């Protein structure tokens, strides 16, 4: 048992539902306690499209079986088939409560009335309590793809690839696919399917048409692409498409796999570097002192911390003082990659431990999930919430991948680093009067650093050389 301030990942059912809700034509029946049906609400507020989440709850309840209220698993499954006639795949996801109750689950579905067609039922026998969201999402995606592998379509006559990206609830997930598709289109490669976000069940059956798989978000696409590689010999590209160098590497690799003319690929890359990708330009333009001895701590999932770490260390020249992930099942892979650009690679899923590590590293900039906001605030350094899970839900998705994403990154860095470089250097030189120090001593220890900083800021704004009791109290009000 651990006492935690928060969690980075949801339970396994949440991961399965994220994948299921990303693919059109899939309906999920969630076997869970009546109180666990928060996915529909989340879907509404996170996606804000006005659509309903393709998820039905089959509540786990005690009592006699003769009631017609939902709760009987077999009856609820046929209800899903009846109410959603366009559904091609029904998946059964089970909450931890359901898994712990050890009930048996059906394996067949009734046919849809009047059509004689039976939707496919996909269950996940590997589900076990304590499994994490990302791991389950990854396996669920592989199972869904395997379920649709009966027909074997021909390889497309022109080069195409499949994009394996993040599932829904990544704030800019759709934008990431969009940017990748734009770039591939420019080098002359068509996207056969976007998996899972934006795919439909038909696309899942046509994956073998593509010449290669491009993994944008390895956390979820890893085992599915490995399956396709082993079973159908489809090569895959795994470099994170973050930063100009990473994007260029992906495009060149795709060009090679699709037997494109390397010169024309390079020309496209150059053209993009000249107009879209602003990160290299930003790195050239900014005087080196902006980045010299600036330390960055990055924490997040797998693709984003690694991709950002590479880009910031190599392309921008910042010092990555710490780089961590909460995905404990990817520990070895993560450390292997992260060690190539930082000494401070770590794997940790307790937010307080993460905060302590970041605090000990004394960074000048924190990049992380929304749970790292507090650390950055208490350290008084700028914070960029660039790694999922993030709390904000923009209407306009801004990609972080690809060349357009590198410009977004440049903007974020510019504003974050500029804010700190504008601050006067004499932070420590501020004098405190005795009364002000007495007041400050009354502030709880964990808030004191912040209170001191705010008071000094206020004094500086007022043009006062020292912090008096009045200034301190004003800054606290």
């Amino acid at each position: 048992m651990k006492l935690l301030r928060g969690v980075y990942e949801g339970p396994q059912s949440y991961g399965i539902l994220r994948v299921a809700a990303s693919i059109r034509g899939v309906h999920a029946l969630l076997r869970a306690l009546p109180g666990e049906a928060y996915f529909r609400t989340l879907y509404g507020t996170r996606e804000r499209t006005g659509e309903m989440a393709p998820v039905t709850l089959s509540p786990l309840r005690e009592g006699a079986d003769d009631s017609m209220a939902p709760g009987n698993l077999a009856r609820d499954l046929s209800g899903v088939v009846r109410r959603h006639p366009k559904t091609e795949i029904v998946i059964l996801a089970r909450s931890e409560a359901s898994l712990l109750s050890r009930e048996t689950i059906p394996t067949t579905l009734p046919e849809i009335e009047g059509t004689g067609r039976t939707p496919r039922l996909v269950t996940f026998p590997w589900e076990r309590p304590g499994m994490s969201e990302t791991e389950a999402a990854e396996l669920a995606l592989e199972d869904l793809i395997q379920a649709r592998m009966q027909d074997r379509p021909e390889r497309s006559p022109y080069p195409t690839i499949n994009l394996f990206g993040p599932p829904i609830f990544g704030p800019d997930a759709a934008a990431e696919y969009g940017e990748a598709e734009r770039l591939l289109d420019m080098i002359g490669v068509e996207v056969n399917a976007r998996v899972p976000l934006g795919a439909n069940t038909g696309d899942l059956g046509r994956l073998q048409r593509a010449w290669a798989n491009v993994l944008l978000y390895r956390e979820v696409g890893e085992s599915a692409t490995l399956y396709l590689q082993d079973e159908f010999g489809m090569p895959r590209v795994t470099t994170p498409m973050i930063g100009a160098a990473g994007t260029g590497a992906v495009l060149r690799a795709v060009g090679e796999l699709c037997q494109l003319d390397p010169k024309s690929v390079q020309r496209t890359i150059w053209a993009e570097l000249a107009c879209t990708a602003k990160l290299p330009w930003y790195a050239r333009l900014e005087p080196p002192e902006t980045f010299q001895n600036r330390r960055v701590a990055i924490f997040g999932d797998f693709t984003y911390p690694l991709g950002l770490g590479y880009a910031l260390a190599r392309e921008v020249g910042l010092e990555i003082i710490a780089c961590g992930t909460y995905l404990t099942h990817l520990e070895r892979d993560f450390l292997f990659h992260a060690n190539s650009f930082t000494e401070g690679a770590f794997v940790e899923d307790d937010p307080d431990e993460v905060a302590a590590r970041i605090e000990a590293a004394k960074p000048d900039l924190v990049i992380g999930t929304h749970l790292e906001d507090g650390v950055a605030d208490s350290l008084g350094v700028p914070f960029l919430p660039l790694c999922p899970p993030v709390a904000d839900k923009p209407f306009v998705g801004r990609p972080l991948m690809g060349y357009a994403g590198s410009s977004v990154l440049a903007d974020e860095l510019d504003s974050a680093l500029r804010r700190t470089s504008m601050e006067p250097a004499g932070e420590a030189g501020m004098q405190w009067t005795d009364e002000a120090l007495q007041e400050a001593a009354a502030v709880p220890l964990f808030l004191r650093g912040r209170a001191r900083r705010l008071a000094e800021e206020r004094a500086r704004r007022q043009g006062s050389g020292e912090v008096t009791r009045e200034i301190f109290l004003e800054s606290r009000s």
Partner: protein
Amino acid sequence: MHAVNGLAERLPDVLVVVVGTQAEAHLVQCLPAAPSPNLPPSRLNPRVIFAVLDPDDPPQQGLLASRTVESAAGLRGTRLVLLVAGRTAESLGIDAAFEARLVARKLDLPVEVVNPDAPHKVPGILSTDLEDSVLAALVNLCPKRRTSDLVETASPAKRGGLFGGLLRRGVEASDSDGGRPVVLLGGTLSPGAAGVVAAELSRAGVEVAGSVPGSGIGELPPLGEGTVVAVMDPNLTSAAAVAEKRGVTVVKTLMPVGVDGTARFVQDVAEEAGSRTSEVVRARSAWEDLGALRNRIRGKRIFFTGDTGFEIPLARFLADAGAVVLEVGAPQLDRRFLAAELQALGPDVDVVVSPDYRGQTNRIDESRPDVVISSPGLHLPLVARGHLCRSPRDFLEAGLYGYGGARRILELLVLTMERAETLDSLNL
């Protein structure tokens, strides 16, 4: 006009009133305090206010003065009011001198009128002109030196001359009134500049009595006959001239930039102040300390497009340290004032006064220098053309005075070139 923001930032306790039309107000507001290409326009400085005149309805006499008095009342600690009134104010019938006298009487503060459009000895409108004239105004504000001081100090100075260096050497450091008082002029662009130079001078046994602008208007040092003024900026022609008019000895030597410059500066100022030291030992050890850094820039070709006026001392030092200086642009050049610098730079380097930017860009493209020390206007276009650029402001902000400054100049250059190499080696 361009320097108003910077001035207000660098001179504490000054209130700057810009008198003009909306155009002037907008111009001043848009330009950042330090025109480096990467800085955003700074926040509005509360010590700069705009008296925006309506061209159709020029204000009555005295209105400007009373408004200025009102706004000065709102700012604590104002010790000097500068009325910046240019040609538009003049043509709208504002008698700036009259208003200034009025304000001065009401506030009981010194008020100076600065005309940025006044005919300058060297043509061209430059931010440094305003700085120059403001410093000239400040020199005027310095309290006059009493003659009794003069008599007191004159005799030991003479004695120093008679007995020569032998006796003086060890005594100087403890004997603060041993020579004539030295006042530093300028150095506002670089943080802590006056302190650095004063430290170098005191190591050589010369006490610095103060500096202009110094830390505040109230602490301006007395200036008068017998004072030695050491100029630290190459742009302060008229400030130096005003000082000279008051009977001050202005030392005309190299700027205290770089090893050679600092050594010459310290030596010459010390000599004027009546102490005799030899900087040779210190200069040599500083020079040897920089050996590794000098090796890094030896043979590198450097082009100065001209911006702050510090290009000439910088180029002189870098050429001395082994770099190849291709061209030095200077927005304006008082050849007499900078005679020592130009002589040290040597006749082989092209010094182009108020360069034409197209021609300069072409010359840069042709000669492909290793580093271009560029002005803000040319910075971005040159970077886009693939040249490695540094703004001379970066050198100023890092602090370029003294022996420590020499190291910082070289370090900045080496860092710039190293970073360019890392970025070039990336496979994008």
